[in-house]
């Protein structure tokens, strides 16, 4: 159901709603909000043809701050909501947003299976390695010796989840890492993520200035991946990079050509009374 109105090019700020974010001053998610608006404006996608779908957490508040369609669902199920919407409405640009806890812990199963299914949508995970909304617990991507989480005062002692390596192994078709401090660079990656067919997984390292203030240093640590490693379509090469780069390389780290999930929605029946044939005696 596309709009009949004239498709005018909008400025990024016109994709924002009037609602003021609940985020703390300095939160990395502000930068990601800006990147999303720049990417949508850059691609000339009308706000009514976009749906931002999320679960629960600080970054999952994203849909409310955009002047697009949105769905702020329950914790961990954003990708399932998004898959249903995209499958039924392939004409809509569907973007799921959320955090590391929502996507990789409570929503971990959907993450695996959405990568595997490879629907044509984009998933933006604002990874800050902490549960911010519940005030500072360790998340699946938290390093094992972080001792400030009140549920794990001795540290988690367990290996962090490797979202991009797992996305690659599970079947995602586009994999990128960005820094929220580079709003324009992130926007450029998002434009490619949205345009690339299939499931595009974009991890944005987005500092939690309240519970992980040391993450302000990320912007000094993250570096663009070497040119020759960018946007490889060789999964083995991408895997080697993702498993060895200690999470510091940014950019498009895999751009594949895997088959996209989109059932055809075409009726072949003139009258549903034809179903009665199989029941009739």
């Amino acid at each position, binding site marked *: 159901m596309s709009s009949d109105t004239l498709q005018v090019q909008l400025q990024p700020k016109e994709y924002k709603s009037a609602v003021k974010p609940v985020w703390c001053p300095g939160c990395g998610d502000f930068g990601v909000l800006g990147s999303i608006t720049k990417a949508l404006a850059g691609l000339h996608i*009308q706000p*009514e*043809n976009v749906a931002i779908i999320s679960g629960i957490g600080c970054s999952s508040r994203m849909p409310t701050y955009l002047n697009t369609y949105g769905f702020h669902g*329950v914790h961990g199920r954003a990708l399932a909501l998004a898959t249903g*919407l995209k499958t*039924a409405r392939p004409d*809509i640009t569907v973007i799921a947003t959320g955090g590391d806890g929502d996507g990789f812990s409570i929503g971990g199963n959907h993450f695996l299976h959405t990568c595997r299914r490879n629907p044509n949508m984009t998933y933006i995970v604002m990874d800050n390695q902490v549960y911010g909304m519940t005030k500072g617990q360790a998340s699946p991507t938290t390093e094992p010796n972080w001792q400030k989480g009140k549920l794990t005062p001795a540290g988690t002692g367990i290996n962090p989840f490797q979202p991009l390596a797992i996305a690659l192994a599970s079947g995602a078709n586009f994999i990128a890492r960005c820094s929220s401090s580079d709003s324009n660079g992130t926007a450029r990656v998002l434009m490619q993520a949205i345009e690339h067919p299939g499931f595009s997984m974009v991890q944005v390292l987005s500092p939690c200035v309240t519970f992980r203030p040391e993450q302000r240093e990320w912007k000094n640590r993250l570096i663009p991946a070497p040119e020759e490693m960018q946007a490889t379509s060789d999964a083995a090469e991408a895997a080697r990079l993702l498993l060895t780069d200690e999470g510091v390389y940014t950019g498009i780290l895999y751009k594949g050509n895997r088959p996209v999930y989109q059932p055809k929605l075409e*009726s072949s029946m003139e009258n549903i009374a034809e*179903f009665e044939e199989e029941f009739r005696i």
Partner: protein
Amino acid sequence: MNRQSLSIALTGSGGSGVMTTGSLLLEAASRSGWYGFMSRSSGPQIRGGEAAAVIRLATEPVESPDDSFDLVLAIDPASLNRFVAEIPLREDSLIVTDSAAGRRSGGLPEVPGRVFDLPMQELAKTVQGGRPNMIALGAIAKMIGLSEASIHSALEKILASKGPDIIETSRVCVQAGLTAGTELPIFDQPQLDGASALERWSVTGNEAAGMGAIRGGVRFVAAYPITPATELLEWLASSLPRVGGVLVQAEDELASINQIIGASFGGTPALTATSGPGLALMTESIGLAVCSEVPVVIMDVMRCGPSTGIATKSEQSDLNIALNGLHGDAPHLVLAPTSVTDCLFTTQWAVHLAEAMQTPAIVLSDQSLGQTRAIVERPADVSFIAKRLVPEQFEDSYYRYAVGESGVSPMSVPGQAGGQYTADGLEHNQAGVPSSMPEDHYSQLEKRERKINDFDYGQHWADLEGSGSTAVITWGSATGPVREALSRLREQGNDVRLISLRLLAPERPLEMAEALKGVKRLLVVEQSHSRQFHRYLRSAYDLTTEVRVFNRPGPLPFRPDEIIQQLADWTGEAGT
């Protein structure tokens, strides 16, 4: 009573093909003009274990198992052991078995009835690739007077996928069975010409529900396999693409419910089907559909619980979770079909209601409806289709959750310019912006309750029959046996009222008061151990009459004579 009926059970050990034999028998009988149904009783084994095909044939439409069985055909004698409770027999019941089969596992259990020997194994050996179950089919056909032509056309249809060789082998076996059957007692032949004049269907409750969903407008289904809902999903998986729809096999039930909410948010009427364990997993997100006002339909084909329970057997014990499983104040619809045929009507109605009120509807079918194949008159066409209130044009600001008189607010669809909003499980104001203000919470709670309470459900909220001062109140699959019991009593001049609820939530206090007017005694009939339906009635309605409860858990179905006995005991004690 004018109706003639025959109740037949086929039992066998795993792989003996009793379900195929039962299906062939029902198909052949339907071609000869019978009505009837076949239910399935089996253990959890994928292969092996004992299984029973339970069939009732009748000269008129029939919904209930009879009080007892006229004929049991046990492919091997010991296979009847497991079903002694499920297959009540009389002294004049006929038991046909093969005394030479399965000697190692023991013989027939001690049950009433006259036993006849049919050497099915030996006869099958005379045909290359022959099987005892096809000998059984021929023998039963002879005993109940089915024509060879009807058996042959049933073989052609049901064994089509097995290829011509298997069909031919089966035909030869059936012939041997027909010949052997001449040695067995023959049942009286009923008049069957009336039925064939009307259009009849052979349909299961699960297929009927699927048909109701598609007729109602459902075009997106996401689901995870679970017994006994799987056949509903299988039917939809192959049928939906024909009408431009799709079924997605989801990774789990959490994904199923959220995928359908996503699809419905996009404007496509959507449904999932599951059983108790899956419904339990879905409850959080059903609450999301309530709060964000997204219409969805959840079919629960109930089985014995709690936990994994008895996955292959029927029970009416998900009523509590369907009514009360959601956290917070979460008004939603709960409906239940009252027969195999009614699975079509009630599912179609549920789609219409969910869409009209932008709310989730849970439909409580069960194993005994879903997996029963019935020969019925063609269900009447009903006009209920999905019709959602969608805004045509937008003012300067669009209020997705505007509080109006009906409580139903126009719902925009992605793609509509000016209709952008965020659907939210957070409490929100009329614009859909999250709000923790008490006035927003009150007004949205009140709106969501009012829209389903004030809706005009018409006459369909319950099936009401009769007008006596004694009434039986029931729901779902228990309706069939109750209806037959009351029909027998009515023929004896004893008018007992039937109240069978199709709409369980929201409550209908005014209609119920009217339905109960003049009732002095009310018998509650339900298939749950903890009297879930009785407790629901007590909390939802003013029951000013004397009330008794006849309840029992699954899997044993109610039988009409048990209900008649309950009523007779009560009347006897009262001295009237």
